[in-house]
């Protein structure tokens, strides 16, 4: 094991000449190294100019004829998260191929499949980055669109729904934070500001200052199922997630679920929905596969801290793994999270009954079980997250199965 050979701390694997010792008029070391950083950037690692400079300095601190040193200098300076590491290893192996093998990594390499989002609908054109020239729908058209199932829409109608989703108010239910703000009326005494005030008046007792706890948006963790059975809704759900991230970038986490859990929050931070969707499709490696919900909820519990958050799971509950595992993980999730919301697009169908093993295992641990098939359903979900009165109570056709 490469890992164990390193117990002594000696990098004994860098046999042969390093890339920087290329004899006979080879390219300059700096050019070789910046070229490597450029390759990484092309592969999606955020190796910007600043990081590249740090990389060059790091290589300067080490014996650069040893390939292992170049490997570590690059990994330490150019990568920003565990997701970058498989990409880094691949690029390193490809770029410095002959010179030395990249050290083995313990985790399995992720194979990224880049696939345009719209292709999930079966042959649709990829969304253009901006908005199309089609005129926005009128109010009455919107009202009709609002209740239609997105899976049965034409490309143009879906685009209109997506435009409206981008305008969705992604407000959040507030929660009491540990930070305080001054308050003119009432609250606890703010000792620091009061004493400051006294000091300012030369030690004369002054008016008592007060403070109250500040409100912060409650965190939302959203899981979007991108497996085959959800293909017709995945794009719309991701756009809904985008609206949430755009509204509260600091209080939203989004993951895609399928055969593995992938954190896609960073991809969704783009202002432009089209660009954000492009980033997402590049980041998600398992479009249209199966779903192993149990394992992924477990992965979520390890990767993210759902304490106090509203967890939204958008899935049809077609579980390929064990329902027992899902049940156990959902139970744990419901104990940690503030609220667990399950969004099932099929719930919009009046004939729908929650019969699949996955849904039946999960439902006892779910706070809200809502539909997610139409614009109206998404608006209701947004209202739920904003802490407004639940709107679906008004009763809307098939929305209450």
């Amino acid at each position, binding site marked *: 094991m490469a*890992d*164990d050979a*390193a117990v002594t701390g000696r990098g004994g694997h860098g046999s042969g000449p390093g890339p920087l010792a290329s004899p006979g008029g080879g390219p300059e070391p700096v050019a070789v190294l910046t070229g490597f950083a450029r390759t990484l950037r092309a592969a999606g690692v955020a190796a910007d100019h600043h990081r590249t400079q*740090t990389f060059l300095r*790091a290589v300067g601190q080490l014996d650069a004829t040893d390939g292992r040193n170049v490997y570590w200098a690059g990994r330490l300076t150019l990568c*920003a998260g565990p997701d970058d590491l498989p990409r880094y290893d691949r690029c390193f192996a490809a770029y410095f191929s002959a010179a030395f093998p990249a050290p083995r990594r*313990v985790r399995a390499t992720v194979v990224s499949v880049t696939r345009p989002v719209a292709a999930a609908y079966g042959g649709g054109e990829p969304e253009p980055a901006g908005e199309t020239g089609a005129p926005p729908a009128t109010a009455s058209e919107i009202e009709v669109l609002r209740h239609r199932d997105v899976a049965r829409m034409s490309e143009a109608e879906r685009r209109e729904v997506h435009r409206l989703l981008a305008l969705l108010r992604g407000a959040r239910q507030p929660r009491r934070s540990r930070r305080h703000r001054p308050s003119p009326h009432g609250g606890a005494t703010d000792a620091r500001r009061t004493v400051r005030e006294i*000091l300012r008046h030369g030690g004369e007792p002054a008016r008592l200052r007060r403070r109250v706890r500040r409100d912060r948006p409650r965190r939302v963790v959203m899981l979007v199922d991108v497996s085959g059975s959800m293909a017709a809704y995945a794009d719309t759900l991701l756009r809904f997630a985008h609206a949430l991230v755009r509204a509260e970038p600091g209080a939203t986490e989004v993951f895609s679920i399928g055969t593995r859990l992938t954190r896609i*929050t960073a991809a969704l931070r783009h202002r432009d929905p089209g660009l954000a969707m492009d980033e997402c499709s590049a980041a998600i490696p398992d479009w249209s596969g199966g779903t192993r919900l149990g394992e992924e909820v477990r992965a979520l519990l390890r990767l993210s801290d759902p304490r106090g958050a509203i967890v939204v799971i958008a899935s049809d509950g077609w579980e390929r793994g064990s329902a027992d595992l899902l049940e156990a993980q959902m139970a744990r999730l419901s104990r940690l999270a503030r609220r667990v919301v399950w969004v099932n697009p099929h719930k919009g169908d009046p004939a729908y009954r929650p019969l699949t093993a996955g849904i039946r295992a999960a439902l006892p641990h779910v706070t809200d079980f809502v539909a997610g098939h139409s614009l109206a359903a998404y608006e209701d979900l947004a209202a739920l997250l904003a802490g407004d009165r639940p709107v679906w109570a008004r009763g809307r056709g098939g929305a209450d199965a």
Partner: protein
Amino acid sequence: MLRRTTTISDIDAPVRLAELLDHHDYLADEGVTTAAYLALKMGRPLFLEGEAGVGKTELAKTLAAILDAPLIRLQCHEGLDAAQAMYDWDFPRQLLHLKAAEAAGVADVAAIEGEIYDRRFLIARPLLRALETQPCVLLVDEIDRADDEFEAFLLEVLSDFTISVPEIGTISAATPPVVVLTSNRTREVHDALKRRCLYHWLEHPGFDREVAILRRRLPGCAERLAADVARTAGRMREAGLVKPPGIAETLDWAEALLTLGAVELDPALAAATLGAVLKHREDQETVRALGLLTPGGGRG
């Protein structure tokens, strides 16, 4: 015996640092060694990320021991603010000073005003203390638990190792402290902060290294027992538990077994001491169901 202090300039190669870490019972792999070496040499903060119990905090403690420097620790939590992390004014003492001056009949208001905002009335919290202590190792532990506002403070401090106090001016470090930040990755830390740092993702140790760590930390631990514990721990980490055991847990477990006089991992003792390594009921059940504690399952 006269002990000579190791300074950063004495550490002239990663190999030398590995020896020192080893001497302080931290068995580092190549990645950790290179990361720590570059952090020392380049004066950059080291950002360590990885699951709980892979030895992130321990590395900072060991670096402090090697440099014979105090470890200044800032444990992050939600709502951590500048008054808790950087500095605070000692208001009661300022008031006392004011009253004393008044009683003494000092009339020069401007002078008193200058006096009460003197450095001696400033309480240094970890970040300011780290700038004023040389040498020192600053450990910013579990940065993912703090909120965005705090990251902004920290970024400012770590960018140029200065803190500006409006009433006094700028306080800067003559030589920047060695800074280690750790994160369990429950939240994505802002990229601007990571860019200031060297980033290292720590994995659980491999089998051989874990055996070496167990035997180093627990001198009475037989090779057989260490190997059994390390192998079972490795399997537990692959079993997809709620909380896979870290090195601290394996050490606790081996120590518990050792206390009960075990020379190898036998199922009865393993079951009796399982609480030392797995702290969730579900995990204990999973491990029992998978048969990881029976000789066949633990060995194989």
